């Protein structure tokens, strides 16, 4: 991929092919090399092809491969317009035997003869720049072979039967089937990925009396604003009023108290019981206001939550009954995966505002909570991806990747989704708020004193929001997608709460469970370049399975203890998968955003007591 350096820490993927805007990646050289290791940069390009996208398809330095959108991806789409401009490039598959299996997007195969004879209208996959992309059949025909027919069988058992003049993709480019001999590497597909398979045998097939042709369209330029695959998780940081020194020798006791008070992991039942549909409807429309009414939050907590803890436009009729079924027994639960709750020590402050505005001094103890909207939000996301895939044809959307499912933002389906997503965001705020209260009580009981965590700030890092941003010198209403990215409004922004007006909106970037997390604030550069967004975390480096293998036989407790961390998780594997070496260093990620003028570090935290699902 062709990358142009356009700033100290900014790299551009110039507009090419179906891209509507250039891609931009925030990274230093090392992080950029890491990003090249998976398909995340291709996903930045995919997002850039969606209609209505404005300025750039962006990637934060914690970018890694996600579903559809890259994680660490930010993109803004015009809120009203969805441009559709179909184009077509002819692409031929010549003269193959009728039982040749043609790959369909995501769902197996169909024989070539069946495609031709049934006048198949659906999508099939074809190869574009080494990637499988869907396209549609434009015309098909069957005829007697005009040239001798041959059969190739590969080492992996794949089989192609076609006329000698049929072109086949080899490692040296397209070649006529008749010229391909044993040992030649030809392109084959395994689970959507292309690999080079070796030809094992070539035989003549005079018995084949009928071959088939199909011509396919290869449309570009016709995606509509969306890519709404979000789970609404976020993170909050609270002051505890405790000093690190006074907790010496009590870390284990604290971890156990927190583990018993906050439900975690598989099947963790809500500490506040299963809620009625009526209470559920109130939670998802009122958000953190519900928590204030029920004694789980103070008015100050609301002020220090993004959007005041209530995302507007939430209609409880928008999420399905199934979403309510999944989520109503999970309010106040942490879940598993990368979600966590931890106590951290402030180890470094970067300026006087850390104390004057945030009240943070070195040696203070803060509480960090990372989780989301639980089964409620997962279900909303799942159902909408599914529905958007089904209705894609109605809006002439061809999906390069089903997980990039989208609908025009202004369509009834798009509006319904935004409303359901607001419900999920509200649920997530209530969830984190209830956990904050449970944790405060557990810490207090453990230490024999009253502990009331005071929220510094709560941010979403998986959400789409309608916001106003400057595009080409004019203010425009856009929908900003932050998929594994955090809002970071600068000083003076109207949506930054009063207390933080002069320093900018606070952002918490959690690191892994052994190394540092950071409190940041937004800078003016964020409004100019990233739609008011910055990074959200460290960014995963190693897969869960790889971590399980690497950590096999390792004493995880001892390893973490050596880093000064006491941890308790539901299972060994949930700890192994989240060990620090699975992640990039959040220190480097946040430094890049500071060098780029997007966000600034206020304080650095290091964990000492962690609970995981």
């Amino acid at each position: 991929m062709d990358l142009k350096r356009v700033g100290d820490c900014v790299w551009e993927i110039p507009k090419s092919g179906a891209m509507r805007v250039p891609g931009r990646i925030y990274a230093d050289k090392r992080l950029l090399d890491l990003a090249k290791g998976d398909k995340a940069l291709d996903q930045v390009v995919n997002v850039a092809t969606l209609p209505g996208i404005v300025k750039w398809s962006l990637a934060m330095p914690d970018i890694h491969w996600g579903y559809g959108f890259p994680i660490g991806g930010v993109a803004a789409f015009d809120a009203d317009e969805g441009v559709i401009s179909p184009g077509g490039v002819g692409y031929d598959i010549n003269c193959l035997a009728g039982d040749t299996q043609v790959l369909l997007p995501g769902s197996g195969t169909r024989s070539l003869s069946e495609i031709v004879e049934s006048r198949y209208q659906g999508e099939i996959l074809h190869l574009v720049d080494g990637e499988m992309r869907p396209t549609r059949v434009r015309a098909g025909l069957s005829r007697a072979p005009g040239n001798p027919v041959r059969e190739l069988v590969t080492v992996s058992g794949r089989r192609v039967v076609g006329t000698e003049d049929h072109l086949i993709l080899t490692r040296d480019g397209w070649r006529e089937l008749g010229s391909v001999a044993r040992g030649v590497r030809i392109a084959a597909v395994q689970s959507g990925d292309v690999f080079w398979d070796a030809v094992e045998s070539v035989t003549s097939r005079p018995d084949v009396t009928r071959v088939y042709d199909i011509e396919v369209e290869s449309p570009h330029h016709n995606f509509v604003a969306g890519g709404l695959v979000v789970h609404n998780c976020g993170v909050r940081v609270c002051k505890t009023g405790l000093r690190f020194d006074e907790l010496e020798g009590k870390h284990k006791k604290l971890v156990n108290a927190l583990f018993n008070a906050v439900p975690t992991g598989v099947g963790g039942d809500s500490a506040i019981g299963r809620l009625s549909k009526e209470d559920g409807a109130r939670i998802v429309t009122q958000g953190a206001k519900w928590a204030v009414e029920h004694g789980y939050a103070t008015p100050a907590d609301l002020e220090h939550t993004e959007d005041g803890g209530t995302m507007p436009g939430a209609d409880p009729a928008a999420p399905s009954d199934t979403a309510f079924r999944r989520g109503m027994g999970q309010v106040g639960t942490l879940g598993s995966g990368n979600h966590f709750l931890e106590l951290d020590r402030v180890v470094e402050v970067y300026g006087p505002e850390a104390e004057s505005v945030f009240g943070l001094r070195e040696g203070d103890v803060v509480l960090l909570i990372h989780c989301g909207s639980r089964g409620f939000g997962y279900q909303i996301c799942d159902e909408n991806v599914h529905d958007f895939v089904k209705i894609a044809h109605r809006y002439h959307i061809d999906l390069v990747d089903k997980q990039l499912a989208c609908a025009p933002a202004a369509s009834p389906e798009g509006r319904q989704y935004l409303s359901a997503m607001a419900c999920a965001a509200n649920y997530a705020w209530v969830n984190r708020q209830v956990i904050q209260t449970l944790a405060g009580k557990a810490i207090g009981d453990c230490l024999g004193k009253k502990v009331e965590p005071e929220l510094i700030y709560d941010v979403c890092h998986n959400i789409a929001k309608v916001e106003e941003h400057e595009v080409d010198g004019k203010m425009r209403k856009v929908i900003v997608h932050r998929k594994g990215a955090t809002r970071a409004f600068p000083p003076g922004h109207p949506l930054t709460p009063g207390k933080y007006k002069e320093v900018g909106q606070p952002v918490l970037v959690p690191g892994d469970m052994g190394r540092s997390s950071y409190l940041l604030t937004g800078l003016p550069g964020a409004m100019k370049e990233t739609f008011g967004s910055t990074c959200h975390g460290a960014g995963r480096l190693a897969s869960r399975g790889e971590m399980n293998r690497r950590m096999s036989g390792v004493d995880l407790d001892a390893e973490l203890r050596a880093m000064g961390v006491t941890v308790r998780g539901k299972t060994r594997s949930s700890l192994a998968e989240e060990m620090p070496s699975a992640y990039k260093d959040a220190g480097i990620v946040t430094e890049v955003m500071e060098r780029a003028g997007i966000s600034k570090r206020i304080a650095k935290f290091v964990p000492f007591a962690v609970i995981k699902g």
Partner: protein
Amino acid sequence: MGYTFFDHTGDIGVDLEAPTAQGLFSTAGLALFEAIADTGNVEPRVTRTVRAEGEDRADTLNRFLQELLVIFDEERLLLPHVAVHELDERTVVATAAGEKYDPDRHEGRTELKAVTWHQLAVTPGPPLWTARVVFDV
């Protein structure tokens, strides 16, 4: 019949195989619950009828697994014993049997957020029906 879990950055994938389409769906149900918890000693004490509809075979498998996942989140039931009664390209009706998740008896593994369409594929037999599913963790 069988299933093999494989790596996918941050998530869990599973490759499935069975001699029949029905067997493939049963195995997929078992694999889903095995991702969530050790089902080795889950007895078929309660049953739930599960229906799902999809656009095609792969979509139907995806919807079927998602339905089992919803039952787990709602009722905390591990239902790894799956008998498929009706199955065609677009519909499935099955009975899933098991018992309530008990963390003391069934070792919990991981929560699943969703059954994704990422790399989703069903390939009919003969000889074997195979499928690939990725769970969002």
